[in-house]
C-alpha cells in the first residue's frame, strides 16, 4: 500500500505552523488518490508538544522524533532524520508545506533518496500509481502537469491551494522514534523574529498591501489593516527600498497568499506580484494609473489616490459596525 508521509513543522515557539494543516489535507487527498495511507512526521527538540494536535487529523500514524541536537532547525540535521524515517516506513511520497523550511529541507531529503521533486504543488491529478501534479512555472504564468518517475516522490505543497485539515478525525497512533542524528557542517547562530501583532500574511483572511504609490508611508495601510484584523503586505519595490521588512513581500519570489479579501493600494501589479495574490477570492485595487495591470485581476478597481481613498474607506467601513 502506498505510504504518504507529510512532514509537520513547528514554529520557533513550538506551536504548529498553520500551513502544516494545509499540507496534511493535501497528503490526505494524495493518499486517497493513490489508494494508500497517510502518515505524519515531526522531528525536533520537543515534537511531543504538538502530538495531541497532530493525532486528530485522520492520519494512520504520527511519528515523533525527538533529539536535543535538533533544537534549532537546520536542513543538514533534519534531512537525515526525515530521510531515514521515510526509508523505514517505505514511504512512496514525502510532502511538506511550501514554507521557507519546506523549501529548504525537502530538496535535501530528496537528494538523499535520489528522488525527483515537484515544488509548490497546487493540485494532485489521476489515481492509483498514475498520479501527476500541477505546479506553477514562469512566476505562475504557466501551470504544468508533471509526473515524477523515481520510486520515491517528493513534493512541497502550496498551502493556499488546499484547505486546512480539520481536527477531531479520530486518534492516530502516536509512535516515537530515535531520529538519525548526523554531525552538521552548519551551525545555527541566531534568529531575528519580525514580531507583529497582526496575523501572518499567508494565514490572514484579509490582506492590505501597499506598493510604490505609498512612497514608503504605510500609516494608512496599517490603519486599514488593523481596522479589518488584516495582515499587511507589500510589493517587491517597497521591500527592495527597505521601507518595510522583506517578509511582507507578496509575489512569486515572496509570499503567496490567497485571502478572502486582498486590497492592493498603490501597487501597479507586476507579473511576479500578481503570481503571489491572484488566487485571492476578492481583489480590490486602488491606483492612480488607470492602465495599471493590477486592474486586470481586480474585482473592484478604483482609479484614485490611495492617500485620499484609504481614510475614507476606513470611515465608511466603521459605519458598518
Amino acid at each position, binding site marked *: 500500500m502506498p505510504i504518504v508521509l507529510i512532514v509537520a513543522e513547528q514554529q520557533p515557539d513550538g506551536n504548529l505552523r498553520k500551513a502544516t494543516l494545509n499540507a496534511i489535507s493535501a497528503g490526505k487527498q494524495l493518499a486517497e488518490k493513490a489508494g494508500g495511507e497517510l502518515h505524519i512526521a515531526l522531528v525536533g527538540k520537543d515534537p511531543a508538544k504538538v502530538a495531541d494536535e497532530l493525532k486528530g487529523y485522520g492520519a494512520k500514524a504520527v511519528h515523533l522524533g525527538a533529539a536535543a541536537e535538533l533544537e534549532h532547525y537546520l536542513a*543538514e540535521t533534519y534531512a537525515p532524520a526525515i530521510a531515514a524515517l521515510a526509508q523505514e516506513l517505505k514511504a512512496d511520497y514525502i510532502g511538506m508545506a511550501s514554507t521557507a523550511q519546506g523549501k529548504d529541507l525537502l530538496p535535501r531529503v530528496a537528494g538523499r533518496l535520489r528522488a525527483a521533486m515537484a515544488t509548490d504543488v497546487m493540485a494532485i491529478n489521476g489515481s492509483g500509481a498514475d498520479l501527476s501534479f500541477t505546479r*506553477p512555472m514562469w512566476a505562475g504564468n504557466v501551470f504544468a502537469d508533471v509526473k515524477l518517475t523515481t520510486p520515491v516522490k517528493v513534493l512541497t505543497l502550496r498551502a493556499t491551494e488546499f484547505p486546512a485539515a480539520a481536527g477531531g478525525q479520530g486518534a492516530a497512533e502516536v509512535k516515537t522514534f530515535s531520529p538519525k542524528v548526523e554531525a552538521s557542517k552548519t551551525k545555527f547562530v541566531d534568529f531575528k523574529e519580525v514580531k507583529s501583532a497582526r496575523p501572518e500574511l499567508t494565514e490572514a483572511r484579509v490582506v492590505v498591501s501597499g506598493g510604490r504609490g505609498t512612497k514608503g508611508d504605510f500609516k494608512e495601510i496599517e490603519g486599514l489593516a488593523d481596522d479589518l484584523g488584516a495582515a499587511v503586505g507589500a510589493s517587491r519595490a517597497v521591500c*527592495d527600498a*527597505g521601507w518595510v521588512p522583506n517578509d511582507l513581500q507578496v509575489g512569486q519570489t515572496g509570499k503567496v497568499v490567497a485571502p478572502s479579501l486582498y486590497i492592493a493600494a498603490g501597487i501597479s501589479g507586476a507579473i*511576479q506580484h500578481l503570481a503571489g495574490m491572484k488566487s485571492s477570492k476578492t481583489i480590490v485595487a486602488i491606483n492612480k494609473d488607470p492602465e495599471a495591470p493590477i486592474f486586470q485581476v481586480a474585482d473592484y478597481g478604483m482609479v484614485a489616490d490611495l492617500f485620499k481613498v484609504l481614510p475614507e474607506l476606513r470611515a465608511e467601513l466603521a459605519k*458598518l459596525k
Partner: protein
Amino acid sequence: MKILVTAKRVEDPESKIKVKPDGSGIVQEGLKYKINPFDEIGVEEGLRLVAKHQGEVVVVSVGGKEVQEQLRHALAMGAHRAVWVNHTGPVDQLGIAALLQKVVEKEQPDLVILGKQSIDDDQNQVGQYLAEFLGWGQATFASKVESMESEQEKNKVPAIVLSADKKSVQVIREVDNGLATVECQLPAVVTTDLRLNQPRYASLPGIMKAKSKPIEELTPAKLSVDVTPAIQVLKMSAPPARKAGIKVADVPALVEKLHNEAKVV
C-alpha cells in the same frame, strides 16, 4: 577564495510567456533571454567576495552553445573564467545537480553560489541537491539586513561574511517571520535570495575583456553523468483567467459592493 557560480539561461522575466495551443511548451518566438536574475545576484556576491578576499570567480552553465551568452555576461561583470557543460536535450534538477557535483569535484571551489531558483522552472532545488550530494553545508535564501539604499550596498560590501580564519562563512537567511543567521564550514553551498545585493552592470571595458576570457567546454559524457530526466512535463496550460472586474466610482460604492456582493466585510 575560489567561488563557483551558476549562470542559467532563462527567458527575460519581463517577457510575456504564452503556452503553445497544444500544451507542449511555451511559445519561443520573440522571447529574449537573460541570465537567471538570482544567478546574477550570485555572480555579484562572488565578485564582491573576491574583491575583498582575493581569489577567482568561475561561472558554470549547462545548455546548448547559446548559454555562452550568459557565461559571457557573467565574465563581462568580472568573473574570471567559465565552464560550459554542452548539453542540448532535456535535463531536470537532479541531472543539473549531478553535473554540478562533477564540476565541483574538478574545480574544488571553497564556495558554490547558486540562485535560490530559476525564474523558468521555479523549482528551488538544485542548491540543496548539490549540497547533499557533496555532503556540504547549505545556506539557502541568502539575504541581508541592510537595504538596497544602504552604505554597505553602495560600497559593494559582500553580505556573506568570511570568518577570520577563513574556514567558514556567516550567512543571513530570509525565512518565514524573520532572518536566521547560520555559519557554514567551507566548502559550502549558498543560494541567493532577492535582496542579497543589486548586481552591477557590465562595463564596456568589461564586455571587451570578457571576449578573451576562457570558456572550458565539458559534456555530460565527459563528466560521466546520466542526465535522463526523472520529471516529465505532461502538459502546460495557461492559468485560469480571472473574470474581468468593474471600476467603482467612489468609496461608498466600493464598500457597498464588498458588503453586499462579495460579502467580505
